[in-house]
């Protein structure tokens, strides 16, 4: 058990990492980046199965398909790193997009202001979930489950159950810049912001501490409650961005948009190597996780596999991916 790994009081420990062969280094890399290796193997398999997979057009399609889930999942990564979970992201995506469309259409707000309203909606709703968790002591599962229902309901209330056309700037978010689709660009920008937050901001590093051992973090003076409110607020904000991109793609905010996406976002995060127990998780892993899901869906579509079977296959992929990860961690 833990004692087997205790360091010996030898004055000159030999650094074993320096003497490893190139082969061993590659093996280490593969074992450390299981999700990436999985993604590459998957792409190779798809390429062999159907030549249509590796065309520039199709790859951009994969990018678009991945983008909304990836953006949601970046936000979800913050939450899962703190050992929480956010079930409300799909509903918040729909609500934020709807608020942007509604304020643009019915209140006649300028497009940029309408966009801002959409973003603030996600942020505020996330803060409420965070406060309910941090101060109200509700378990994250319950707080965000409640928010899932409230936000979806509000989306229907605001829209009266009818889709609303999106403001111009939102439609632009769903369009293309030259050959590159905007959703892919937004995904990369949000990924970069997510990475920066987790790795360069002190509050990001604090998220890992809170998820790893909340009490130790608290006793070290880390403002645990502020950290928790921040992660749910960020998750809400990222959900809003995802919702805007999704509605922009369709040029209208749909009341039932992004239903069930919270589960895809959680799947992307855990395929990317994060642990629901907290303290572990990376934006790069999450991106890979979202791409894995998108490649599977895309490939199965190209292969004409029915949508019903696709669900079955995706479920199995999640189980296998996380299972491999658990085994790998056990070995080290």
């Amino acid at each position, binding site marked *: *058990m*833990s*004692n*087997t*790994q*205790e*360091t*010996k*009081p*030898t004055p000159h*420990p030999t*650094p*074993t990492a320096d003497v490893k062969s190139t082969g061993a280094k590659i093996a280490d890399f593969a074992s450390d980046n299981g999700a990436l290796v999985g993604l590459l193997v998957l792409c190779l398999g798809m390429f062999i199965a159907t030549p249509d997979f590796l065309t520039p057009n199709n790859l951009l399609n994969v990018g678009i398909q991945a983008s909304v889930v990836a953006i949601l999942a970046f936000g979800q990564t913050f939450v899962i790193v703190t050992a929480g979970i956010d079930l409300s992201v799909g509903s918040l995506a729909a609500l934020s997009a709807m608020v942007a469309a509604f304020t643009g259409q019915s209140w006649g707000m300028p497009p940029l202001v309408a966009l801002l309203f959409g973003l603030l909606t996600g942020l505020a709703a996330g803060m409420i979930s965070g406060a309910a968790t941090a101060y109200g002591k509700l378990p994250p599962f319950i707080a965000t489950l409640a928010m899932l229902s409230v936000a979806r309901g509000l989306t229907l209330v605001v829209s009266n159950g009818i889709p609303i056309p999106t403001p111009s700037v939102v439609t632009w978010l769903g369009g293309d810049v030259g050959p590159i689709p905007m959703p892919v660009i937004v995904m990369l920008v949000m990924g970069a912001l997510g990475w920066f937050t987790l790795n*360069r*901001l*002190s*509050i*990001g*590093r*604090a998220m*890992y*501490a809170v998820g*790893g*051992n909340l*009490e*130790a*973090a*608290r*006793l*070290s*003076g*880390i*403002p645990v409650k502020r950290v928790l409110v921040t992660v749910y607020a960020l998750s809400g904000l990222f959900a809003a961005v995802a919702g805007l991109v999704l509605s922009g793609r369709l040029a209208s905010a749909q009341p039932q948009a992004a239903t069930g996406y919270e589960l895809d976002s959680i799947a992307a995060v855990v395929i990317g190597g994060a642990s629901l127990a907290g*303290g*572990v998780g990376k934006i790069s892993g999450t991106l890979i996780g979202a791409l894995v899901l998108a490649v599977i869906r895309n490939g199965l579509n190209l292969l004409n596999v029915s949508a019903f079977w696709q669900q079955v296959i995706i479920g199995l992929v999640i189980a296998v991916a996380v299972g491999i990860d658990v085994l790998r961690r056990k070995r080290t």
Partner: protein
Amino acid sequence: MSDQPILTLDHVSKRFGSITVVDDVTLNVNPGKIQVLLGENGAGKSTLINMVAGVHEPSSGQIIVDGHPTRIPDTKASEALGIATIHQELQLVSSLSLAENIMMGRLPRRFGLVDKGEMYRLATEALTTVGLHVDPRMPAGALGIARQQLVEIAKALSLKARLLILDEPTASLTKHEIEHLFGVISQLRSEGVGMVFISHHLDEISAIGDSVTVIRDGKFVAEVPATTPEPELVRLMVGRTIDEQFPRRATPPQEPLLSVEGLTRKGAFTDVSFEVRAGEVLGIAGLVGAGRTEVVRAIAGADSYDTGTVTVDGKPLSKGRIAAAIAAGVGLVPEDRKAFGLVLGASVEDNLGYVTLMSSARYGLVDRRGQARRASEVAQRLAVRMRGLGQRVSALSGGNQQKVVLGRWISAGSRVLLLDEPTRGVDVGAKVEIYQLMNEITAAGGAVVMVSSELPEVLGMSDRILVMSDGRVAGVLAVADADQPTVMSLAVKEVESDRV
């Protein structure tokens, strides 16, 4: 009783990858004898007993049970051979009843349903063997650590264990509880149960052991009688003589740094007042449950309190606010470092940097260079033994983990350190290093409050000793006027009458 050992580990070794953790160790356990296993943290004791418990199989060498070479591939096999291991971390499920814990996995059944009457009868029988007369319907979590330990032993005995392995059973017990435990152990010995006993408390060895096997760095060092004098045992264990167990260098006390006035929280502590001067070590002694941990946690802002004031350097602290306490220079090294002190999955560097993480940030950005520099400086100063700052803190030995928790405060420049059982589960060598660090802190004008259940440590390292009993200050002694009997008599004052 035959003279044949119940268990022999015959030249066993265990390698993990290229690292040899146990190297050619031989150990015999005879019926009705207590074999003490002695070694520093990281010497390989746990790996050795894990071989017997069925957690690891030896890479080479043999396990011989009752004269027959045997394999113990898993814990079930170990149990079937009559071997029971009481781990340091207790394995009881605190929400289940004592009876369910004791009978777990073999609940008596009737008509396919659990036969509760029979279950309670068997559990009561098992509890009686260890002298526990409590209701078996009671949840295990309602008992203190000491009695939970006895419940584990009761469970082992009800499994017809002939060989008990006790991994630091006394680590969190008070003197009185230890005496009771030793009574039970002696009784079992006279009934022919063989035992392997692991402890860091050298004085317990002669009190309970028959013979001592010493290992160091995974290797067998010596087998000596339990009557061997302590300094000789220490020499065998660490491979050198430790001149002073308690190297306290007193510094002349200066102006008061921390003062506590009338601190009260209902049900935890009442009217606690004391003062600690710069350059001083105040030891807080008392029985487990006397409110010592609660008081230091309240001072550090970890918990709130009802009335009273805490003043640092003349400025009052607002209650229940950790950030305020830290800003005033107060640092708490909590009692249970794994539960409250460390983020086990994170690196040494991260763990060293949590206190300064937020305060050193500029515009919200991590001060990466500063954090790395502070971590490497403090790791060097505290001689943290590790492969590198990036190593996971969970891979360090207990003593080095404790240095990391302490280092976090040193690196933040804290001047008032509240150390709650700072040397629990820490080996002799690291203990002395922690004591020396306390000297450095006081020499630099800091103050130390040390809560400890180890009286020799309190007497050896404190300048003054505050004794708590039942949530109150029972007395404050200058170290020159204190000895074990005076401290103990204060610690038990009033306890008998007030407790339910």
